[in-house]
């Protein structure tokens, strides 16, 4: 399998007044295409920071980041936005849907920024909504959807731009366990289709539904192991 993500000696520190908070202290890892990786760690371990750097939402102080053979370095805002649009899909803990747009419009938005025509955009968005099982909810506003449905819309939106890597930051953090498993089932299905997915979580059961677990503590990787994946469908009645 080709290498999808490669990071070498990644450092990140935040300036808090006169103090400097060293969050990532030299991270090295590789992820191959089609992997489903859980990044675990207690709060403050740097897992979200790592994900933000991988998502080009934040910049590292030093180290290399190569995404599918493209070095991600010294990006200006415009370039970063284009890369994000082309390479990455995001799923956030708090869904981050645009509240005055319908489910369909939310899913179609990344395609709008890819300058895909309206008809094609809507057809494609509808296909992804169907994939997450929300075809009937296409014309509903986020406020009319349950938490699980919102997250599934967010996943559909992340997938709509056909990214190389899907980044999920605590995707089940705001959901009850049944809904969490449903969302994880969806993520596993998407992974089964060959998509590379990184999931940040602090829940053991969620992590075990991935294929590999990376443990972060105090800004370094303390454990990196492949596991036998537990299918979420086993938990869903």
């Amino acid at each position, binding site marked *: 399998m080709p290498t999808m993500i490669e990071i070498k000696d990644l450092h990140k520190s935040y300036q808090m007044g006169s103090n400097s908070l060293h969050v990532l202290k030299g991270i090295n890892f590789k992820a191959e295409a089609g992997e489903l990786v859980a990044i675990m760690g207690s709060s403050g371990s740097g897992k979200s920071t790592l994900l933000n750097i991988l998502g080009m939402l934040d910049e590292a102080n030093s180290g290399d980041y190569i995404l599918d053979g493209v070095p991600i370095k010294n990006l200006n*805002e415009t370039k970063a936005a284009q890369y994000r649009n082309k390479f990455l899909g995001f799923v956030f803990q708090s869904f981050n849907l645009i509240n005055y747009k319908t489910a369909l419009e939310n899913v179609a938005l990344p395609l709008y*920024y890819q300058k895909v025509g309206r008809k094609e955009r809507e057809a494609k968005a509808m296909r992804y909504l169907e994939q997450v099982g929300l075809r009937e909810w296409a014309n509903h506003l986020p406020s009319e959807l349950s938490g699980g449905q919102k997250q599934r819309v967010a996943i559909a939106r992340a997938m709509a*731009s056909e990214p190389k890597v899907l980044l999920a930051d605590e995707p089940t953090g705001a959901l009850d366990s049944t809904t969490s498993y449903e969302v994880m089932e969806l993520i596993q299905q998407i992974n089964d289709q060959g998509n590379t997915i990184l999931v940040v979580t602090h829940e053991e059961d969620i992590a075990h539904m991935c294929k590999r677990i990376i443990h972060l503590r105090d800004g370094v990787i303390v454990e990196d192991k492949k596991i036998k994946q537990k299918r979420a469908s086993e938990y869903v009645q």
Partner: protein
Amino acid sequence: MFNRDTWREIFATIGKNKLRTFLSGFTVALGILIFITLYGMGNGLINTFDQFFSQDATNVIYVFPGRTSLPYKGYKSNRTIEFDNTDLADIKTNFPMFLEHISPIIRRSALAKYKQESNTYTTFGVDWGQQFAEKTVIMKGRYLNHRDIEEKTRNAVIGRLVEIDLFGAENALGKYIDLGGSVFKVIGVFQDEGGDNEERQIFIPYTTRQLIEKNTDEVDQLVVQFKPELGYTGAMALESNLRRFLKDKKYIHPDDRNAFFIRNVTDNLKQNQEFAGALQLIVTVVAFGTIIAGIIGISNIMVYVVKERTKEIGIRKAIGATPKTVISTILLESVFITTISGFIGMLIGIGLLRSLGDNLADDYFITNPYISIGVAVFATVLLIVFGAVAGYVPARRAARIKPIVALRDE
């Protein structure tokens, strides 16, 4: 930037954020509306002003006799100055280049009688040219003419209210009235917008008046009508020349200020025009103050709008919106709203001024308020441009925020 998709996106945003759209639109529309109303009212005030001072001809200099206050060339002070027919003739021959006409006024109070009705009126012995100095409008009959003056006819032109007082419903033309013991034939009836008093006057030939008063040649006032082409400077020059000429002729000390008085309508007019100009300036300053207040208002709303949308901007950036797209979308949206509502405010304002018309003329001295389309459009465009500038600054800042900061949880 201007493709259909962008606009579809903008209209969707406008349509789904009605309160925000309404707030910013309302501010702009109201600002323009107030500006146009204020500015138009100011113009209406000035119109009233102009009307006030255009009732009498403006190319007139009045000369009133007085008493000397300084001894000069053997004459004691406190000498009464009088004008007579020779003064009229002398001024005529000495200022032929300047004059259009010169008329005397002999003002007398007289009891007028017709059948049982009688009343006391002010009579004015005048020359035929006085009609133009006072812009007297003849309702019926005619004004005094050359023949009346030369032949010292006993013809009288009476005011509209004199006719009503004395003749009631009867037609006064051709009737004879007793005027202080002499019989006069009514040859004309005039009207005057100056008010009741001016319509209770009677004009007779000044020569007839002099004949009645033992064939004297004295007159009360001189009314000098000069050629309008002289303009303000010419009129002021004529005034000082006239002053010098009369002082010389009547042996009056050059520094004597009480021997006679001159009222130059042009000078008054100029002062009044300056006053009106100051008024206009004040109105303009207040009106543009309103525009500035509107600009500040729309700026505040833009800052608020961008702040409210920070998270949305973060989301959009995370899924691939470039800073340029973000800024242009926000700006196009705000310019669109301000343009539409600005022009709506403008049209309402202009419509309001039109509908007011002369309704406020009597009570508030505002006649025919109006605003030129150029000024209205300029103010509207000014507000739109500054609204856009005010929106650009926070929009650019918002577009620069890292999505991670914008998305940080609430």
